[in-house]
């Protein structure tokens, strides 16, 4: 490897500090444990990955966004994809948990698809975010990504003995409320789990949090309780989302709730700003902040602590 190559990789990691990466999940003892991508491939020689990667979660790419918080969201997505493609053990799946685009424009979807097509994985699974569904009937999203769900948006699939449920909580509008699954989808989801063995690891993913993170900013799903009740009997449940552009985790019994970073820009901690808008942070501060949440997950895979190690420490 030439000096130039090393430099490029280190620079890519720095940029991940600005825009972040995805989150890698490995199946360890029946429990899916999140591992930070940037830490999985630090600068210099690749660090050995102890768990076989199952999938990568990418979220909130916001293609079309060009404000101060990140004028080059295509660039940060590209670097994220480089990291995924450069992983020593490639995951078969990538899950995109929504807000693929920023303004739901055809050209934004086209660009996002073009960028994501560089991912060297066998399957890309998606759920829409509220930014992807503002056009009439969410036609832009469904024309491109509706096939897997027969244009419902929600669907399930199995991979490597793990059952995945893709849910949509951004399309049924409740005035003044939180994200909503809606009766039809809830009934489907509960039915989908009914005859499954409790030993099957379950991964549920949606765009908005499926648990209450910060309700004044709408960071939750109002009608999810009946589904969570059904999930309790399973030995390993991982509930994933994007939307809030930062990592927040909660463990409740056998259920791990985990929110992913954006590849585009960070958002403030719930309630710690006037609103949840894009966070404009000096580069060094941002790098340190992101580093805190990510790298600690690598050093202690079963720990859900989000502090102690910075991204700068992983360089």
């Amino acid at each position: 490897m030439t000096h130039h190559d090393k430099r490029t990789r280190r620079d890519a990691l720095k940029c991940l500090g600005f825009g972040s990466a995805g989150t890698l999940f490995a199946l360890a003892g029946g429990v899916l444990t999140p591992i930070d991508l940037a830490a999985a491939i630090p600068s210099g020689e690749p660090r050995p990955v102890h768990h076989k990667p199952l999938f990568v979660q990418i979220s909130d790419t916001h293609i079309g966004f060009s404000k101060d918080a990140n004028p080059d969201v295509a660039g940060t997505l590209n670097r994220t994809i480089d990291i995924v493609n450069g992983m020593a053990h490639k995951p078969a799946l990538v899950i995109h948990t929504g807000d693929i685009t920023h303004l739901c424009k055809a050209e934004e979807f086209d660009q996002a698809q073009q960028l994501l097509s560089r991912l060297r994985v066998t399957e890309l699974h998606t759920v829409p975010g509220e930014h992807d569904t503002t056009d009439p009937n969410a036609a832009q999203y469904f024309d491109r990504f509706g096939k897997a769900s027969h244009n419902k948006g929600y669907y399930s699939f199995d991979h490597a003995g793990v059952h995945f449920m893709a849910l949509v909580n951004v399309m049924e509008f409740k005035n003044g409320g939180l994200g909503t699954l809606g009766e039809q989808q809830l009934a489907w989801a509960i039915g989908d789990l009914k005859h499954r063995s409790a030993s099957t690891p379950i991964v549920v993913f949606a765009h908005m949090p499926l648990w209450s993170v910060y309700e004044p900013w709408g960071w939750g799903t109002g009608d999810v309780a009946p589904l969570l009740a059904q999930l309790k009997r399973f030995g390993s449940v991982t509930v994933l989302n994007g939307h809030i552009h930062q990592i927040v985790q909660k463990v409740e019994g056998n259920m791990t709730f985990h929110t992913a970073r954006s590849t585009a820009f960070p958002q403030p901690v719930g309630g710690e700003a006037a609103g949840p808008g894009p966070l404009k942070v000096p580069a060094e501060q941002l790098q340190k902040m992101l580093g805190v949440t990510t790298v600690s997950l690598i050093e202690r895979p079963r720990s859900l602590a989000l502090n102690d190690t910075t991204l700068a420490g992983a360089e």
Partner: protein
Amino acid sequence: MNRFLLVGLAGLLAASGAPAAPPAAPQVEVTIENYHFVPATLEIAAGTTIIWRNKDDDAHTVMDASGAFRSDALDEGQSYTHTFAKPGTYRIACSMHPQMMETIVVQ
């Protein structure tokens, strides 16, 4: 001379059968700031046009909760207008951020 020409032009327009707009049709501006409609409640006369202008660097929509009208995603600086012809109470929301609400009473 100028005044005479303007009056003449107005006369021509009136004669051409263009719909008679009420004189100085009222317009009210609502801003979208920090994930809020400002003001959150508003009383207007029937026939008033509201202009919603997004001042956030995130995108928002303007949607009548009953589904009567809905904007596309508005980027920062973009606006959407709607004229309220009929009296009533209208609940306005952002379809992207359901916590954002506005009540408009049309007299």
